[in-house]
């Protein structure tokens, strides 16, 4: 698959999503679709209820678009799965490739992370 800076709205069925969300954000995303993007991390909040990744991507015109991605699990659950998770696991200027569910509010630049690759290493 050829990656672009701001990528493809792919109609990919997600199937049986794990029942993990604590908060109402399950209802916020279109879980039948995923989008894929490449960007540069600007901030990582390893916080409750769910960690957030803020990142910049360039659209097809070269304009920077600010995005936010929510992690499905809380910090405690992520650490249970992989002890490497902490507030510095993702850092500003890291190169991010993300596959995520788009928000139901079409204009929102928010998505829910399904897969994360940081600096060419898949971490989620």
């Amino acid at each position, binding site marked *: 698959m050829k990656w672009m800076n701001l990528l493809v709205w792919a109609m990919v069925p997600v199937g049986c999503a794990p*029942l993990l969300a604590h*908060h*109402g*954000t399950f209802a916020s995303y279109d879980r039948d679709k995923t989008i894929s993007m490449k960007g540069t991390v600007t901030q990582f909040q390893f916080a409750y*209820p769910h960690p957030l990744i803020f990142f910049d991507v360039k659209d097809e015109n070269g304009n920077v678009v600010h995005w936010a991605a929510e992690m499905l699990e809380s910090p405690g659950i992520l650490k*249970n799965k992989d002890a490497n998770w902490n507030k510095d696991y993702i850092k500003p200027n890291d190169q991010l490739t993300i596959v995520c569910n788009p928000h139901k509010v079409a204009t*929102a630049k928010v998505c829910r992370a399904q897969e994360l690759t940081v600096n060419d290493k898949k971490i989620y």
Partner: protein
Amino acid sequence: MRHLVLAPLVLISQALIGQTKSFDPHDLSGRWDRTSPYEAYSNVPGSGGRNAIVAEAPLTAAGRAALEKNIPGVGPRAGNPATSRKINDPMDTCDPMGVPRILNVEIIAPHNTMEIVQLPNRMLEFFEWHHDWREVWTDGRPLPKTDDLEPKWNGYSVGRWDGDTFIVNSIGLDDRTWLGRYGYPHTDEMKLEERYQRVDANTLEFTMILTDPKYYSKPWASDKKIFKLNREKAKQWDEQAYCVPSVEFQFNQLIRDGGFGNQK
């Protein structure tokens, strides 16, 4: 591959050790992890995943009307931030979850822990998620009359032993709370009974039965909640998973409701 073969044997042997280890059925103290499949008061629609056996609550017409006003973030009645049907789960504003929601709110480690401390006159329950706690009086005092009480988030609770079953009766429960994350309501006249049994050294089971005639046509029992003793967690720092309003409000605005990218 060898690990894959041995893993079930290890689990089975651990379970057998738990069943054969001596224990005092009247000792409920310890850190217990909720393992029940239903993250809800009971196995209501939406609560159990694919192919789960679920049952609708015995709602009265008034109960049904109250349920319709509660818009959860999960399940078949979930709200949608792209429409006018906005989520109004009190958990999302860091409101206290109250009893019985605090008893069924989390089934995922490490948030699913409840610690029980038994004192001579009280039993205390501490909850990891939202770092909350409640007290159950065991000194023989009767419950007050509902009319004499101001409702409280976790209500008023007394406990007693009936054989090897510890029975907790609660009243005075604030009606702003939901029974669980699917939005089932209750009035402040609800009476709740919890029945705890330590069935082996590692397992605590309990069920709840609520009586609330305005909203439920008959007493409504929960599914059986199953807790496993977590001996390792007793050696660890608390997770301190507080709900922080300043964080939560920003999260709701920017993330849950899709405000990020739409700021003016």
